[in-house]
């Protein structure tokens, strides 16, 4: 009984919350209609929506969205494989760790975007540059998380592995990766965000097919409705990727919640 009441009130609150957001959109519409802010900077939600629908149905907004998703996905997948593999190698070698980890930690606060000029010097303003930047930048949180996860494995498990004479590969796959999986998945969640940001920056800089380029040219041409449509799509990509990764994280870590 109580549970059903709380479910009811949760739904009601959700509706109220949507209504509040709708009220803000209406306020935005009123501000735009009253021309309190010049329409050059601030299109009304009606115009932004129209631009979004028009771009998706007849324009090339779909292609741009797919371009951004593609950059993100390639960079992120590359980052996941390399980051986890390298992290597992470093993390499972306790004697090597003290030599490598301080250097890795030194680079942790370095803004990844600072590497963009270095990659431009190597590859020029190209697709290769963008993918390398995204891959390298997104690899970093994953690498550090994996190393950390491996280092935090219960030491007695390693002792068990030694007394069972397990090979290095078996230690990594049977002990290291499962115990480090919460850290690795948290790293993957963080690196999705990094991949999205770096994709936008690289598209913006190198003029690659993607939403980053779209919003910049819309701004240059003062087409604010198209610009807002692009920003809305980027927000949706950010939201959906975060939801998907968080869902995968919950599904894969079910065993943890069950008390083992």
């Amino acid at each position, binding site marked *: 009984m109580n549970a059903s009441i709380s479910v009811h009130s949760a739904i009601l609150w959700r509706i109220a919350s949507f209504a509040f957001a709708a009220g803000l959109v209406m306020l935005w519409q009123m501000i735009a209609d009253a021309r309190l802010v010049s329409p050059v900077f601030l299109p009304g939600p009606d115009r932004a929506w129209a631009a979004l629908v028009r771009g998706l149905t007849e324009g090339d907004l779909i292609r741009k969205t797919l371009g951004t998703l593609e950059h993100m996905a390639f960079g992120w997948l590359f980052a996941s494989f390399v980051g986890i593999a390298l992290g597992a190698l470093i993390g499972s070698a306790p004697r090597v760790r003290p030599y490598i980890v301080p250097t890795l930690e*030194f680079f942790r606060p370095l803004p990844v975007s600072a590497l963009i000029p270095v990659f431009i010097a190597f590859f020029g303003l190209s697709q290769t540059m963008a993918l390398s930047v995204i891959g390298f930048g997104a690899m970093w949180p994953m690498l550090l998380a994996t190393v950390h996860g491996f280092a935090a494995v219960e030491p007695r498990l390693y002792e068990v592995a030694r007394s069972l004479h397990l090979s290095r590969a078996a230690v990594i796959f049977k002990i290291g990766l499962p115990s480090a999986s919460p850290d690795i998945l948290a790293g993957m969640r963080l690196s999705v965000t990094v991949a999205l*940001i770096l994709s936008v920056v690289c598209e913006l800089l190198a003029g690659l097919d993607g939403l980053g380029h779209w919003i910049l040219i819309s701004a240059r041409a003062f087409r*604010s409705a198209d610009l807002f449509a692009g920003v809305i799509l980027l*927000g949706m990509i950010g939201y959906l990727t975060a939801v998907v990764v968080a869902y995968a994280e919950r599904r894969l870590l079910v065993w943890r919640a069950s008390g083992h």
Partner: protein
Amino acid sequence: MLSADTWKGLALPVTLIVLGEIFGRMANLTDIDSLAPPSSIVLAFIEAVRDGSVLTTTRDTLITAFTGLAIGGTVGLMIGILLGVLPVADRLMEVTIESIRPIPSIAILPIVLIALGFGYRLEIAIISFACMWPLLILTRAAVRGVEPRLMEVSRALKLSPAARVMKIVIPAALPRIFVAFRLAAGIALIVSVTVEIAINPLGLGHALMVAQQALRPDLMLAYLVWLGVVGWSLNALLLLAQNRLFGRAAIVEDVR
């Protein structure tokens, strides 16, 4: 004396620098526009320090980062406290916050650009947007996590809402708010450099881009290493402050 671990930590970078120098000398890097031996990176850095460009660019980056952090952080802190204290407001704002927060901060760059043009204000506005979220989310969580008995005490004392926030909520939530502040400071530096590299003609990010376009890999790498030092020092300083000020009270799980 340095401990054994410190020496081990230094071994890799020192080896890399020595190898870089040997390789750079042997392979006549002047023909390549993307690399430079460590010695010429050091020389380029000394030159850039002498002519004052390191100082001005670092100052510009740090000023925009901290101003943005101050503005965005204050806004995030206030909204966070409000939402933490008033569950009704929190539930009403939920959809709004959930739909704005995932927008990558760099995506609002073109919007701010046409509204404000190039310069400090462009960068400060974007940094504020980015820094607002960690403070908002973590402050809200910190305020909700305030020991319920403290709130009972404040009710028993018949404190006004303002006094309750100032005397009970903020002091109790302060350690965790500082953690949020430290995370936001890191974000501020990242966003400012990203905006400078993408478009804004000032600061360390722009200096990096200019050095690259001038085909000066030595200067570019000098700025990159310097930026690493700046980021690392900022982080180390804030961690030190956190440990000194709050000790174990600030140890909470990193959110996000």
